[in-house]
């Protein structure tokens, strides 16, 4: 078994776990989780009870319920709402992991209903069997459209899915795992899927049509047989290089530095021993010392946004999140390409500003009015209030000191009576904004 973290498990550790394995803590949640100890905490995430959605129901800018199948952007809001309100944060987080792993963009699919159907598939298999998930994804309608599965027929084989299945989903490129010949043969094995066109609904009636399948003998990874699409999936999952690809890629979603070689081997054994089950591997990763002792991670825009809303106990009450998240570089259901989002490039001067705007949007409704609010004329007290407002996040000493320094200096500017009365509220508003967009809250 891979090593298990043995250090103290208090609020900072529980908070990190809630970010890495979910969408961040609600107020008080990290303190409560810490009481369960490491194993109890991880178990509560990997074995949650029945799912409930807690908190205010989502609505659009006009107060109407969301229409994820029909209204542009509502699919993203619908999902963001689940991230904010779910009682199964890890399952929801894994749904996002699979969306990135099997990155499918609505650009190449069309109807939102097919994207949402794929999303349900990811959620259903969130912590289940990867082998089953791969098989299901392979004939998922959105994927069939996205990577040309429905264009892949025996007379005109299309390599699109077969190549990405090996390169991005199961084995990895440049590892000597497969050849261009394997790509062509996989394409032949995967032939047979089709759909019809309906003028109102678009693509419908996705099905396997034997007449479009190439029944001949294929040679894949050196094995010969009358392989079909199920064999294609099976061969990939049983490929000698699949377990190492799988555990390394899965690990990267939770811990930003590569797993030690011994850990990687142990995770591979765990994965194979449990018949390609995801849950035991995730569990081992969440218990690993590297998660608690290693460096922080940059939050994705979805994680950052959902986390802020959870901390503020705010539901989805505006459509602004769609374009704000898109400005920040992550429009759900629109990954940039089939390789998913590039986790190393979340932050630049444009996306930093977008995150600032996300923070502004998140706190705007509850801004303090300087002519009404009565606040203490004291930097430490103002800072403590802002921390409380954002759910008492654990801050680095450096950030805490800089925020306090800011508040002190700003209080010092109050050289008139009206300023002494009004500045504390302005400062409090500014502290919320600065804290929410500080490097500490961009990372976890």
């Amino acid at each position, binding site marked *: 078994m891979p090593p298990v973290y043995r250090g103290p498990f208090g609020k900072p550790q529980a908070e990190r776990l809630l970010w890495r394995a979910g969408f961040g803590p609600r107020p008080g949640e990290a303190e409560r989780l810490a009481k369960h100890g490491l194993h109890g905490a991880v178990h509560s995430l990997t074995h949650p009870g029945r799912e409930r959605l807690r908190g205010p129901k989502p609505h659009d800018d006009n107060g109407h319920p969301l229409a994820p199948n029909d209204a542009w952007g509502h699919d993203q809001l619908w999902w963001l709402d689940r991230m904010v309100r779910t009682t199964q944060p890890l399952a929801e987080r894994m749904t996002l992991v699979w969306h990135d792993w099997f990155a499918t*963009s609505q650009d*190449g699919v069309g109807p939102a209903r097919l994207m949402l159907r794929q999303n349900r598939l990811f959620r259903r298999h969130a912590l289940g069997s990867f082998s089953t998930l791969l098989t299901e994804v392979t004939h998922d309608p959105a994927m069939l459209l996205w990577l040309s599965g429905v264009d892949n027929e025996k007379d005109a084989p299309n390599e699109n899915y077969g190549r990405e299945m090996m390169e*991005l989903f199961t084995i990895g490129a440049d590892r000597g795992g497969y050849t261009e010949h394997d790509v062509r043969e996989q394409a032949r094995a995967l032939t047979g899927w089709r759909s019809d066109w309906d003028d109102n609904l678009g693509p419908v009636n996705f099905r396997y049509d034997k007449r479009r399948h190439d029944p001949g003998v294929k040679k894949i990874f050196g094995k010969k047989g009358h392989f079909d699409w199920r064999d294609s999936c099976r061969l990939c999952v049983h490929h000698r290089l699949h377990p190492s690809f799988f555990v390394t890629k899965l690990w990267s979603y939770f811990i930003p530095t590569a797993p030690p070689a011994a850990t990687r081997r142990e995770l591979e054994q765990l994965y194979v021993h449990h018949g390609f089950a995801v849950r035991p591997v995730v569990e081992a990763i969440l218990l690993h010392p590297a998660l608690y002792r290693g460096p922080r991670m940059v939050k994705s825009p979805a994680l950052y946004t959902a986390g802020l809303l959870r901390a503020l106990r705010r539901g989805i009450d505006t459509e602004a999140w769609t374009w704000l998240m898109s400005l920040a570089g992550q*429009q759900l259901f629109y990954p940039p390409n089939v390789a998913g989002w590039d986790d190393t490039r979340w932050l630049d001067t444009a996306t*930093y500003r977008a995150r600032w*705007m996300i923070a502004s949007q998140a706190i705007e409704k509850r801004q303090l009015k300087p002519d009404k609010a009565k606040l203490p004329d004291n930097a430490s007290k103002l800072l403590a209030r802002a921390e409380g407002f954002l759910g008492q996040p654990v801050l*680095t000493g450096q950030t805490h000191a800089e925020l306090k320094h800011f508040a002190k200096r700003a209080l010092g*500017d109050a050289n008139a009576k009206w300023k002494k009365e009004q500045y504390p509220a*302005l400062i409090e508003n500014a502290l919320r904004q600065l804290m929410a967009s500080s*490097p500490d809250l961009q990372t976890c």
Partner: protein
Amino acid sequence: MARSCHHCDEFSRASLMRRSAAEAGRGLPAIEPGMPLPAGTGLDRRSFVTRTFGLALSVYGLGKLGLFEEGIARAASGPAQPVLVSVFLPGGADALSVLYPALDPTYLKLRPTLALDPAAGPVFTEDTRLHWHPSLQPFATLHGEGKVSVLPAVGYTHPDQSHFTSRHFWEVGATNARLTSGWMGRYLDHAGTMDNPLQGLSLDYQLQPSLASTKVPVASVASPEEYSFYAPGVWGDVEQRMLDALRPLGARRKDPFLNQAAKATAQSDRLRRQLAPFAGNGYGTPVPYPDVDDSFPHQLAGLAAMLAANLPLRCVAITAPGEYDTHSDQPQPLADGLDVTARSLLAFQRDLEARGLANRVLTLVWSEFGRRAEENDSGTDHGAAGTGFLIGTRARGKMVGEFPGVDNLDDDGNLRATADFRGVYCSLIEQWLGADAKAVIPGAGSFSRPALVK
């Protein structure tokens, strides 16, 4: 990275980004609309900013902006540097429509429905077999003034017909799928400085990959007057103190990823200071730009204004308006995209001329590939060599490589390249930016350098 771009996702995404960008405009106000100001300060925000930064002059005055932070000031006060602007036509613009062999019998056979009328577009004077697309009259005008070098078939050997891959090659400046830094980014790594994010400016809501550097900071900002940091319920002295706090919050951190976030904070703060003069101000643009429902002309006007303000720009990247992946219904979208692009670039050139900056700027217009010579009834599929343009007063104004003709297509039925984009990059680096191409372009020694600059 994946090679597949079967569904042409990346540039559709660009249009989505543009859509969301447009929506961003009606979202959070950049600055003050309706925001109360505390009584007694007697300052509106503009003059407040102006006073704080010692900006006695607005952007209308050339080159007299004082009190930037030190590095910026140093970079800005040095001798005026040449500027390279990269304009990307997303999707693969159809070379055989951009410059079309109007009377060629093979062309007419390959393009039974899409062949353009010989009378519609002006003749290309350097090769009278060719006509400019009717929407490219502005380019023909500039060409007549000796300010456009035309590359009628630019590309590379063993062309890749995937948007994703071919665009990547152009962006990294090599036919190497694994290279992750952009060619202009590497130039800046080589010749730029550690304290000036504006040296590489992506006029976009995200970083253009050709500017991705490994060492020096670069910036992305959609338009300079937008780059402000509004916080709800914060104004006056307190707002200034809040903005001042960004720099210390961006100070170095021990944790590598916390430091990454701190770096983004610090760079954004620097960029904010650099662009502060533009917040809430106009550009003082001396010429008219096209009034269209696209941000491109406005962004070019902003670029000219930034150059006029002597901001230390070196390499700039921007995506042109229009969708050039014309698999179907080609004529109208192509004409519309080229129209806005060409009129805007003409206005940009005139703007630079009016401001006395035209000798400092060259603009490279490119697309990831051209399109299949034979049409598919209503459009064209992915091809190989495409058209490129180098625009500017200092452009040599002579064709680079010849038009290869449509009787000598490659095995896939595509135009053959007569100029290599990597050679073009080498020339730009050496003849325009004054650096050694070997430090930037892999295998630079093996590419011949066309003469591009006069």
